[in-house]
């Protein structure tokens, strides 16, 4: 059986890989295929395109760049010095101290909370949505179509609308203001289930499952030792999407968590900001930067996966 697992490509390799498989395979092939010479655009067209694209890239990047610069300045310097370069002296340490005092020392805890909620929700969510996606793709059971239809409808439902009734429900069962109020709602991802089933359909060969059954492997063993490995690329994507969605959720923690020591970083910063009002300090900017740093690192490190995942999401269109 181990030899089968290590060479699933031999068994599955279809003559023409389908859309999803192509996306996962070609993920590193970034650049355009060079055009035949006669199709080559003129030099002027290329230069104009480049200028337009650089202009638009500036719109997307300048605010982030300004935050990095501003985190090193004092409040009066923000308006009095040129905004897009460092000031005469570096006030990063002062701003950090101010951030710590305004958060009553809670800031590192908020970041850890965000990490805890996002990681737990993403781990649990990835496991349950992959299992369900695999079941939908590879098993025939009554009610399968209903499950799929209802979950797909859930994908189009405005999720924030659920937050108010969910809060009422969690309040009743005594789960409001606990970490479960963040983790349980965040781990359910209709998109993750959908991606899991699309990917299982195309990359887990039914012959492989049958062969393992004939060898006497139990269904659970087939899933945990074989199928999970085949589904790894899809699982990384699902993990990343649940992680980011949990990290970015604002309304859910705002309703569910009243204890400041349970706050995630987004809610904590909002708290400081609403106390300080419009008199905003570079400390908040520094906090915002530190609060998004883990996400940006993750996005850069796992680039090829989320791109493939987004692409698979586009298939449903």
């Amino acid at each position, binding site marked *: 059986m181990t030899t089968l697992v290590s060479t699933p490509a031999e068994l599955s390799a279809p003559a023409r890989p389908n859309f999803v498989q192509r996306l996962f395979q070609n993920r590193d092939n970034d650049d*355009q295929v060079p055009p035949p010479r006669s199709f080559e655009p003129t030099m002027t067209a*290329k230069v104009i395109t480049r200028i337009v694209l650089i202009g638009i890239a500036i719109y997307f990047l300048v605010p982030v760049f300004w935050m990095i610069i501003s985190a090193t300045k004092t409040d009066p310097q923000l308006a009095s010095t040129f905004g897009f370069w460092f000031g005469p002296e570096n006030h990063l340490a002062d701003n950090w101290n101010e951030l710590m005092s305004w958060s009553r020392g809670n800031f590192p805890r908020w970041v850890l909370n965000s990490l805890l909620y996002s990681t737990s929700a993403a781990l649990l969510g990835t496991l349950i949505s992959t299992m369900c996606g695999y079941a939908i793709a590879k098993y025939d*059971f009554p009610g399968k179509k209903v499950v799929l239809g209802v979950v797909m409808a859930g994908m189009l439902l405005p999720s924030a609308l659920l937050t108010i009734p969910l809060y009422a429900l969690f309040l009743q069962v005594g789960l409001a203001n606990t970490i479960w109020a963040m983790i349980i709602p965040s781990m359910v991802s209709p998109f993750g289930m959908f991606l899991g089933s699309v990917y299982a359909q195309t990359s887990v060969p039914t012959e492989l499952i049958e062969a393992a059954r004939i060898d006497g492997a139990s269904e659970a063993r087939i899933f945990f030792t074989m199928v999970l490995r085949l589904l790894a690329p899809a699982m990384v994507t699902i993990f990343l999407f649940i992680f980011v969605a949990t990290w970015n959720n604002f309304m859910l923690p705002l309703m569910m968590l009243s204890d400041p020591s349970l706050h995630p970083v987004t809610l904590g910063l909002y708290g400081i900001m609403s106390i300080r009002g419009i008199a905003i300090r570079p400390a908040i900017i520094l906090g915002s930067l530190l609060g998004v740093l883990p996400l*940006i690192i993750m*996005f850069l490190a796992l680039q090829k996966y989320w791109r493939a995942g987004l692409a698979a999401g586009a298939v449903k269109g």
Partner: protein
Amino acid sequence: MANTTPITVDQIDEVAVVEPQQVPQNLRRGQGKRHVAITGWLFALPFVLSFALVFIVPILTALRNSFYGQVAQGGGLFGGGGTINQFVGLDNFRAAITDVRFWRGMGRVIGYAAFQIPIMIGLALFLALILDSYLIKRVGGFRLAFFLPYAIPGIVAAMMWIFLYSPGVSPFFRYLPAGTDFFAPNVVLASMANMTTWTFTGYNMLIFLAALQAIPHDLYEAARLDGATGFQIATRIKLPILGPAVLLAVLLSIVGTIQLFGEPTLMSIAAPWMGNDYTPMMMGYASMMGQLTPSGTGPASAISVLMALIAGVLAALYALVQRKVGNN
């Protein structure tokens, strides 16, 4: 064994009937289908149960709650069992539907959607078509730059833009005419639209780009040989193929815009005149938290249900119009 061809799940019963002596014992002849069904359900169960808890139960509770009102009994509203639920029929819906604040908020988000979504989707389409054309060779850097804002939480992006809109903090004000006010009543929607556009354009662009890359390149080469220009290929071949992806992006954007909450909540810190009922979602939150009359689970749930209905109707309308236009 003679029969080495793999058996698919559907065939197990059939095979068992035709050649019972050749079926391995662990397939539990005759019970194969049932066994498969049970295993399938067991795998699906954890997700199905969580989905029911997080999606179905809240919808049902919201529906139920929307027919109940909270009546104070003795102590304060949150004074520990100080309220009792009372069936009020359609009163909560009547209150929300006749509440001018609800419709003002709805008008704001619909107006916001009407100009923000076309700008964002248009820009995303433009960028995707450019990056997919022969006009530019190395696309990796641009794609990443356009997508980066998506990695920044909406609430942090909103804070950042509020700084950039505030005189005394923003680096832009020295270049802007005196009296520029991004928080003025007739400007604030545009200021928020800019936040959303900044965050989600790159995300939509990537989805379109993925759909474009699935189109076989032979199609363009054939069009080229027939004398089509790059512009014609983009508008006559690529845009029509992108249709379904664009439709989905617009539907998801409509649904997302109706529930606009984080951005206006933060903006109202800088612009207190916005109050706590600027969008329907803010109104629902405020009435749930007792910051607004009528307050309580009942009125808040009625607002949620109404919003879901309106979002559904708008999305369905858009899809219908799109199909009509597409057929003609």
